[in-house]
């Protein structure tokens, strides 16, 4: 049975996926909203729930994308496992550093497989992604009142 907090993140992921699909800002925002949503999910939700959602979102992502390598339904769960491994070993206060690391890894993945090598583009992607992540975290905190005890 889904809790209210779970439904909120599902709505957010769906909205972010729609943003990627319709691109209302054209390509002014050099970032991937779904990817940011997945990292946010992995940092703040339990493993099993995050794993299922990351596979589903990655799968939908690949349905629409043109020739994606690596496929996102594999990449997103790998991100989850790496984040979980880091959270086991470090304090949860390093979330912003984990996010930065994941963005850099995502840039390296796509640059390698897509043969795109532009430092300026990578830097812009990193800055835009970080800004969107900060805004998303702030909005989600305001929206959510308390952290449920069920996840301990």
């Amino acid at each position, binding site marked *: 049975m889904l809790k209210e907090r779970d439904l909120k993140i599902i709505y957010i992921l769906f909205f972010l996926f729609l943003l990627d699909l319709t691109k209302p800002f054209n390509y002014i925002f050099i970032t991937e909203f779904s990817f940011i949503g997945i990292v946010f999910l992995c940092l703040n939700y339990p493993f099993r729930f995050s794993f299922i959602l990351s596979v589903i979102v990655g*799968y939908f992502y690949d349905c629409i994308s*043109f020739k994606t390598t690596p496929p996102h339904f594999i990449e997103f769960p790998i991100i989850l496992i790496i984040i979980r491994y880091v959270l086991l070993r470090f304090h949860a206060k390093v979330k912003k550093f984990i996010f930065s690391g994941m963005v850099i890894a995502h840039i390296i993945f796509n640059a390698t497989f897509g043969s795109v090598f532009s430092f300026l583009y990578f830097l812009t992607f990193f800055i835009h992604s970080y800004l969107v992540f900060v805004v998303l975290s702030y909005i989600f905190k305001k929206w959510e009142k308390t952290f449920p005890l069920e996840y301990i």
Partner: protein
Amino acid sequence: MYSSSKINYKNLALSVILALAILLPLRKGLSNIFIFLSEKLLFIPQNYSNYVETIQSKKLKLLLRVRKLSALQEENEKLKKALNFNADKAVNIKGVEIVAFDPSNWRRVVIVNAGENDGLKKGLYAIDESGFLVGKIVETRKNYSRLMLIDDPDFNIPVFVGETAFGLLRGSLEGIKVIYVENKDDVRVNDKVWCKISFFSFPVYIGEVRRLKRERNNLFLDIDVRLLSTNPYLHKIFIIH
């Protein structure tokens, strides 16, 4: 406070295999659902859309006809055998709308609402309302197609620069470039970058030379291109077929 617990790898692997076995066959169906939903989000009344498309197609055909006549006149003045060419084929233009974008920010591919049922096939070129090149069809399905825009990293097309120079236009996320233009060629800034499409006997313009770099020890020029198509992400573009 959220705290982590240990991962059961066996259950994880079994879950992944089960999920893949169920979800992989459904990809095409889900893709169609998403494109359908995205198309409905546009909220453009159909009658108005058809009327606008008709007017825009007529305008574009007239514009292309004017360009054709100008190019023919120029060719006649320059060549002695200008009239010894095959008759032009009739040009068909199909107006399409962008209904969705590739969600990846590392590609510049859009999905348009016309496909094999509308006579489109892979390799057809797309132009905007001003007749400037926008992209190329890379994949077609029955009711929709994928259009690769000029600034996609995988986009390539042989082009002419100015009067005589010839090279390869390569798309890139950081700016369009023309490569393999020889250093001895007479190319200047603001020269037009254009291509020839098989249906047309006149040039289809793509952009202008924005920056030009000559190096003594380099065989080829380093050319950056400014696109003439001011907003390739407009909802309306035209496929030439």
